[in-house]
């Protein structure tokens, strides 16, 4: 062993805070770590590859005839719905994996490094946008294969895809919060499902709202998931960016504004 690089560095400025630039750099490095992990264990992408294919096929052929008369007419309704349901559902994995990750020794090192406190969390949620992208692309491709022709054109579909990915990223902060406060990965999965199921199914994702009882319509109409589904439909089917788009973006921003600080605080308290 050479002793040269064990020498002590003697001139280093000491600061008691992290700059915004450093926070960003640290988060990107942690996201890079997340991507490396996905590359090392590609089997963890099973859910985002199989689920869009399976669900799109299943729901379209089961509900198509009953709700829209035939499959072709149902596609413009179900593809945006299934897209939102699948991609938002994928964000649960963020919390589960964060919990598993935090139980490992390497998190001790992250905590002892002079890096932005939020970086390990931000990195984890950033890396997972890769998962949302895979799920989004596959859902649209499945729809196209089954005969879906989005009237809005490719550009609008791309914007819709980005909207869904951005909103899932925002929602993943909720599950990241559960991931930080829960004791085990299984309980994160459990709590998250209880939150997610009512949100995705009590929406306009699969069936027209008018078919539901009035009291349920009230909830469905304020459910942010419904607005996101509507926004995607407007974009993909009409190429329009409207009121629903803005509501979705605002809801996403509110979720991040609440849950990102909450998650970081819980994370710091656990240390």
């Amino acid at each position, binding site marked *: *062993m*050479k002793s040269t*690089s064990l020498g002590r*560095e003697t001139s280093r400025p000491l*600061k008691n805070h992290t700059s915004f630039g450093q926070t960003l750099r640290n988060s990107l490095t942690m996201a890079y770590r997340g991507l490396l992990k996905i590359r090392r264990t590609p089997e963890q992408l099973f859910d985002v590859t199989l689920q869009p294919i399976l669900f799109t096929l299943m729901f379209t052929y089961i509900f198509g005839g009953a709700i829209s008369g035939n499959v072709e007419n149902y596609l413009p309704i179900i593809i945006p719905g299934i897209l939102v349901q699948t991609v938002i559902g994928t964000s649960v994995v963020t919390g589960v994996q964060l919990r598993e990750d935090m139980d490992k020794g*390497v998190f001790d090192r992250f*905590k002892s490094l002079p890096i932005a406190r939020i*970086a390990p969390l931000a990195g984890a949620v950033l890396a997972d946008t890769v998962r949302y992208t895979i799920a989004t692309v596959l859902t649209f491709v499945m729809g196209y294969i089954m005969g879906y022709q989005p009237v809005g054109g490719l550009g609008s579909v791309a914007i819709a895809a980005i909207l869904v990915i951005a909103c899932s990223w925002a929602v993943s902060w909720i599950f990241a919060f559960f991931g930080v406060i829960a004791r085990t990965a299984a309980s994160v999965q459990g709590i998250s499902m209880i939150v997610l199921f009512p949100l995705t199914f009590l929406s306009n994702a699969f069936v027209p709202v008018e078919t539901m009882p009035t009291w349920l319509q009230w909830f469905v109409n304020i459910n942010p998931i419904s607005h996101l589904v509507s926004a995607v439909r407007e974009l993909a089917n009409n190429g329009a960016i409207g009121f629903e788009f803005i509501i979705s973006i605002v809801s996403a921003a509110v979720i991040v504004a609440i849950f990102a600080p909450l998650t970081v605080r819980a994370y710091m308290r656990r240390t």
Partner: protein
Amino acid sequence: MSNAYNTEWAVEARGLVKTFGDNRAVDGVDLNVRAGSIYGVLGPNGAGKTTTIRMLATLLRPDAGQARIFGHDVVKESHIVRQLIGVTGQYASVDESLSATENLIIFSRLLGLGRSEARKKAEELLEEFGLTEAAKRPLKHFSGGMRRRLDLAASLIAQPPLIFLDEPTTGLDPRTRSQMWDTIRRLVVTGSTVLLTTQYLDEADQLADRIAVIDRGHVVAEGTVDELKASVGTSALHLRVHDAKDIAGAKEIVEQVLQVRSSVTAEAAKITAPMADADQVTDLLIALRTRGIQLAEISVQKPTLDEVFLTITGHGAAANETKAQGQQERMEEVRA
């Protein structure tokens, strides 16, 4: 030299307390570690060693008391403290799913090194720690010793002036252990301060300039290795003669050479005597040869951790730990 290191003390801790439920894991620990030294914290499992280190390394918030690292408070100036320390945990704090190179690159990048700088640093450290060949393999296939070395390498990326090593050699084979000791010694030569915890008196003896013995969350003894040894007592001689008739003669020689009283255990025909200096065994062996006394067995043992504890605290290391330590007590034995 930046003023951060001008302090004489690398670590100053006063009355540190950490409670988990109704268990006071650390109950008023004081520590002073002089910059540039190796300081050993010695104690059995569950004594509060790891909890103390975790508080000093900003990983745990103390319930009471305060601690300064090079004059910076661990709670109020935690971000500064993190720039001054490297932590190698009891359980390897590296990423199992990544390769050694990837681990070091990520830690280097987090510490602000550029892309090519980080790669260079990773290569450099892997070479220093003899891990170059295994650099690309996932850590799953690493041995315990390799993992520890990688862990230590990761702690040295930023060349921190203070390094915490939590039981750096627990579970390592003797060869890897002595390699680790060499590495630790070299760290201090280059100006770093090392605070290490250990269960082995031997290890503290080999490495540390000063030792604190910790038990049930308290520091029960503190001082240089020699001071501590003096308080514990001398090493012990155990001797068995081949022919039981020689036992009286042997006893006489032992007392003559060592200038101490010895005792004989009847059933094993074994003579035991305290020894001030293990070197005296040479004189003793010559004297026995001159008298023509044949030996069956002779050993000189250092006081074990259990004996240290018995002497200092009046009770042995916790009963459930005794077995584990029994396997670990390594004695310097001379067999004839």
